[in-house]
């Protein structure tokens, strides 16, 4: 359960974002939407594993299976003009933000129609249209960038927020410390979300961090902080809504630790269990599969039945198959693309034209 800290007198009051989050508990349509969003991520990732085995996806590939309530819960609260930045474990968040499964799969296949024209791959999904500022591959490296986005929002006097997802290993990097210190110092509208899935590759949190309730690190940055259950999409929404509200209205950042678990190996080369975690431990966590939990609750409440569920399954399977087919048929990037996008040949010599181009 979430613990709330009120060190900064910054616990949320009942406000718009909060009410929105709470309302979801009573809104069957929204719940169906969450289930759909999570299931899409799950099926998409399962097909990624298959595509990887077939050699259609190469390089490093990190699946999001088990953590879907975090992306769905968080991103369902965002406005279109808010910003997201994340790590290499980015497929689920990209889909939850509304990027097209076709364009994401094509990117993973390294094809021309991928979101980044096949030049980023699994770890580097970017999408200007949804303000998705990238999957980043250097552990901790993207956290200062989120602080910079917060700085830009404040500079322009806007009321957007920036969501920064990270794994729990990130809290041990210098980049995390530097970035959160500045955000706390300058009061920037950033919500730093630690997806604590207990492991950084094979290193358990307890073997890497001197403290284990890592949201407490927010104290060092005078930052409101909280911890919540990441397998319950409503808990995620409750905690994130509070943080977003605070960022939007008070320009105060939050450090949120969301406790979750990854059901697959770290990446495709890592066994699901065996060395650093036992099968028994994994099985214990599988009981709290976020999709099963939500489905069961909705079933019990009589909101969905087996036929509805079967139809949803079928629809999503089709959608993912369509993404696969699209990616498969998309051509390889043209060889000229090798030399493109290293630099642009534009300047801001004409300030007004440059501003217009930047906001286009």
């Amino acid at each position, binding site marked *: 359960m979430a613990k709330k800290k009120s060190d900064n007198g910054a616990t949320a009051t009942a406000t718009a974002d909060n009410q929105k989050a709470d309302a979801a508990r009573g809104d069957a349509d929204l719940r169906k939407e969450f289930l759909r969003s999570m299931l899409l991520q799950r099926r998409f990732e399962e097909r990624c594993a298959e595509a990887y085995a077939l050699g259609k996806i190469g390089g490093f590939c990190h699946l999001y299976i088990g953590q879907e309530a975090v992306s769905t819960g968080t991103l369902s609260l965002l406005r279109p003009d808010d910003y997201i930045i994340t790590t290499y474990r980015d497929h689920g968040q990209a889909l939850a933000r509304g990027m097209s499964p076709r364009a994401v799969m094509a990117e993973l296949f390294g094809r021309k129609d991928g*979101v*980044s024209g096949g030049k980023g791959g699994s770890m580097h999904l970017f*999408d*200007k249209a949804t303000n998705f500022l990238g999957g980043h591959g250097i552990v901790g*490296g993207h956290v200062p960038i989120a602080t910079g986005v917060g700085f830009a929002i404040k500079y322009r006097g806007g009321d957007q927020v920036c969501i920064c997802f990270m794994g729990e290993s990130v809290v041990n990097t210098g980049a995390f410390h530097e970035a959160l*210190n500045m955000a706390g110092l300058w009061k920037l509208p950033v919500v730093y979300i630690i997806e604590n899935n207990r492991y950084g590759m094979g290193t358990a949190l307890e073997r890497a961090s001197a403290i284990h309730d890592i949201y407490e690190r927010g104290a060092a940055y005078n930052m409101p902080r909280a911890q919540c259950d990441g397998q319950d999409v409503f808990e995620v929404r409750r905690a994130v809504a509070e943080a977003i509200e605070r960022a939007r209205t008070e320009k105060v950042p939050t450090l949120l630790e969301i406790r979750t678990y990854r059901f697959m190996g770290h990446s495709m080369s890592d066994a699901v269990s065996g060395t650093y975690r036992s099968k028994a431990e994994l099985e214990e966590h599988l009981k709290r599969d976020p999709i099963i939990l939500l489905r069961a609750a909705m079933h019990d409440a009589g909101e969905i039945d087996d036929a509805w569920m079967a139809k949803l399954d079928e629809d999503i399977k089709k959608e993912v198959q369509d993404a696969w087919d699209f990616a498969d048929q998309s051509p390889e990037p043209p060889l000229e693309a090798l030399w493109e*996008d290293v630099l642009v040949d534009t300047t801001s010599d004409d*300030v007004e034209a440059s501003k217009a181009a930047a906001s286009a």
Partner: protein
Amino acid sequence: MPVITYRDALGQGLREEMQRDDRVFLMGEEVAVYQGAYKVSKGFLQEFGEMRVVDTPITELGFAGVGVGAAMVGLRPVIEFMTWNFALLAIDQVVNVAAKTLYMSGGQFKMPLVFRGPNGAALQLAAQHSQAWESWLAHIPGLKVVAPGTPYDAKGLIKAAVRDDNPVIVLEGEMLYNTKGEVPDEDYIVPIGKADLKREGDHCSIITHGKMVLVAMQVADTLAKEGINVDVVDLRTVRPMDVEAITASVRKTNRAVLLEEGWEIAGIGAQVVDYIQRECFDDLDAPVVRVHQADVPMPYAKSLEKAAKPDAAKTIAAVKKVMYID
């Protein structure tokens, strides 16, 4: 034309760019209240306020990343490193993010930002504070790297850097801040990627950049008294490099000396020599000679430091060597 210092030329260029575009801001250690560690931003806080002239904690990695994030969403940050030696802590942001995001995003996210600060050795600051970083940075596709050697070029290049929609590295000469030169009061830019023939002569080309331009000019003066006239090719930008200017000069003089502040191995001079052997193989009358820092960390002792640094005497000897004099 007004004669001002390199420091003031940089300040003037930056101030003009901040006046013409409200997206431009300056961030770094001691840039605001202290007025700049090297006083480049003197008066900026008073003129532009604390949202646009931002003092940071000692957090190079962090504030370089803040610049990157702000640039990604439409601002035009100028990130000052107190010196480039400290930028090593921020190199992940410069190399892995600023330089690569446009490419990795398939052209979606431009990175209009400037990383600037003093580069190269000053006097007796010893090994950790005396190094020239240009070959490290010039190695990276996705960056532009400029190294102005005169006040005129400093103002023109800093303005071009701010206006460029790519990440631009500005390597300022720590020992140049007090040097003076003619700088027009008006708005002008020096194009990035264009070298400047700072002295003309037929006997040998001295190809250089940054602080060493000053040394090359002294060498040219001294040699002229002996009847030896050299071309001084000031690269001004080390990435992208003006290969045409290099080859035009070498084809004329048939001899070249490469002068740089950094170390020998994989240095800027090594790259220039490669261009020369590719483009001017049949034009050469002698092997190219390089002048650079001794291949050791910079020593503290005055005598040793002098021995380690490239200077006028070493450059003169190099010119004479390629001319087979002595």
